[in-house]
């Protein structure tokens, strides 16, 4: 077990290194920030001067070395656009994304599990059918479209919820639902099939024979066991949601990492792009590692190759 944990951690670190290389190379190939911020009639010498100022005149491998050296000390360079340490800009936005993605995650899990369980326990009823349709619809529309529609209906027409910004629960509802809707389908599917397996097991039969009412059997005994594969999916779901945040934060004017990274890509703000994407990736890699290791403890069926 310890060897397994060590090995997984090591692999995680290698993945982090590869991610940093991919991001680093992609940002450097994406265009020259010096040309973007220099006045259009700047001479080649002036452009070169800007490159020197930003440390972009050195060969890419050397720049990468500098990046790694500083990143290990927690320094991700200065944002070119904001002229502040990239890590500061990032931390300002980080909690916005955590709040949004976290809420969306909870919404999608709760709804997905609810619909999945209902669908598994009452196969073929209208509840099952409409639940399925609802979940699949979410997967079939572009997120920005859903967001704009929701704003139109709930904010402009009904006047119930605010359109944009980050300021309490009411501001959180529309964006988090727009994001969550996409993930509901897969959570529902996993819950449904694992619930179906669980409900056929001896354990449930025993719970029933003890005279427990059916809803206790389903929601307590059944769900407890059916949830394991759902949790195993958490990493993938969070990656999807973080991707969705890139779009949704733009629609709802939400101050988060996603909209920050998109802006930074447009502005060719290399340090900020690197820091942002890197941060998200490390988060996901760490999360997957934790899930893997936890399952090593929880589920004895997993073997450690």
């Amino acid at each position: 077990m310890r060897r397994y944990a060590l090995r997984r951690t090591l692999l995680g670190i290698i993945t982090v290194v590869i991610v940093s290389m991919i991001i680093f190379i992609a940002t450097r190939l994406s265009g020259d920030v010096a040309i973007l911020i220099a006045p259009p009639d700047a001479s080649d010498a002036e452009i070169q001067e800007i490159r020197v100022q930003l440390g972009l005149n050195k060969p890419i491998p050397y720049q990468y070395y500098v990046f790694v050296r500083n990143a290990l000390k927690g320094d991700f360079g200065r944002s070119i656009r904001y002229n502040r340490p990239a890590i500061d800009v990032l931390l300002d936005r980080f909690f916005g994304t955590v709040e949004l993605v976290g809420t969306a995650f909870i919404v999608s899990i709760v709804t997905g599990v609810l619909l999945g369980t209902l669908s598994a326990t009452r196969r073929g009823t209208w509840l099952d059918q409409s639940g399925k349709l609802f979940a699949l619809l979410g997967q079939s529309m572009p997120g920005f479209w859903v967001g704009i529609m929701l704003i139109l209906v709930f904010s402009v027409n009904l006047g119930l919820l605010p359109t944009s910004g980050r300021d309490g629960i009411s501001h959180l509802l529309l964006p988090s639902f727009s994001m969550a809707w996409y993930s509901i389908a897969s959570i529902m599917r996993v819950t449904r099939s694992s619930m179906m397996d669980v409900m056929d097991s001896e354990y449930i039969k025993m719970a029933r024979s003890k005279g427990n009412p059916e809803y206790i059997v389903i929601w307590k005994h059944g769900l407890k066991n059916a949830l394991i594969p759902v949790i195993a999916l958490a990493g993938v779901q969070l990656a999807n949601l973080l991707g969705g945040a890139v779009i949704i934060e733009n629609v709802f004017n939400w101050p988060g990492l996603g909209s920050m990274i998109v802006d930074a890509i447009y502005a060719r703000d290399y340090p900020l792009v690197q820091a942002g994407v890197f941060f998200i990736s490390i988060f996901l890699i760490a999360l997957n590692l934790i899930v893997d290791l936890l399952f090593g403890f929880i589920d004895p069926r997993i073997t450690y190759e």
Partner: protein
Amino acid sequence: MNNMKIITRNPHHLFSVLKHVPVIPLLLLLPMIVCGIFGPYLYLHDPTAMKLSMALKPPAWVSGGDWSYLLGTDNMGRDLLSRLIEGARASLIVAFFGVGFAGIVGVSIGMIAGYFEGKIDNIIMRFVDAQMSIPAILLIILLAAVLGGGLATIILSITLVFWTQYARVIRGETLSIKQRDFVVLAKVTDCGTFRILRKHIFPNTTNTIMVLATLQLGRAIIIEASITFLGMGIQPPATAWGLIISDGRIYMSTAWWIPTFAGMAIMITVLGANLLGDWLRDRLDPKLRQL
């Protein structure tokens, strides 16, 4: 349940399953496929014929509408229906080639990783891990910033982002298939590696590939729309659904028909692809349900 019987009896025969035709998903997918292939014969108007004086005409049944423009016109006075038909083609191309190339790359790499294991496998899987830990949409915008927007870029970036899923799943399949008797036998009889992969392993992964590809079709269309929304997608004069919906979103409250019909086109098609994918998964490869 009926399905369950089919699975237990005949888990790996594509054609025996197709006797039970999935009517609804196919009906939903039909418009896109027909429009994508026969588009040019279906136009009522040239989709690029602009008449600015005819801009923003509502659909025929709304007052002010015109029966020759069934779904109304867009901001440049082009027939919306004809544009949607034309857009089906680009969306079909993006989805089909993006997913197709991703499939070719991913399956080959996945089989190699699974078959050889060891170092090659390790290296490949680290790249897969790395790529999967960057949200797809971010990676695609980054790639678009490197390559410049446009149809080819989108296809390429979808390939570069989607292949990992194939690689991961097919690697797993290969790992288990190669333990089976017929592969072991083939190895003993000194069959070439390439031949084993092609003749013995690949045919046994086709079900999985089918399921994956169908499910990814829908995702590709959504991604195309999202990238165009972020400003790096398909550029005119090409027309894709994603472009119509993202350019048309500004008309949501004044000329609702543009974003609404474009959105419905996407929704219907992706819903069809997802339903078909679900259906195939239930019948061909139920263990894939985590996707």
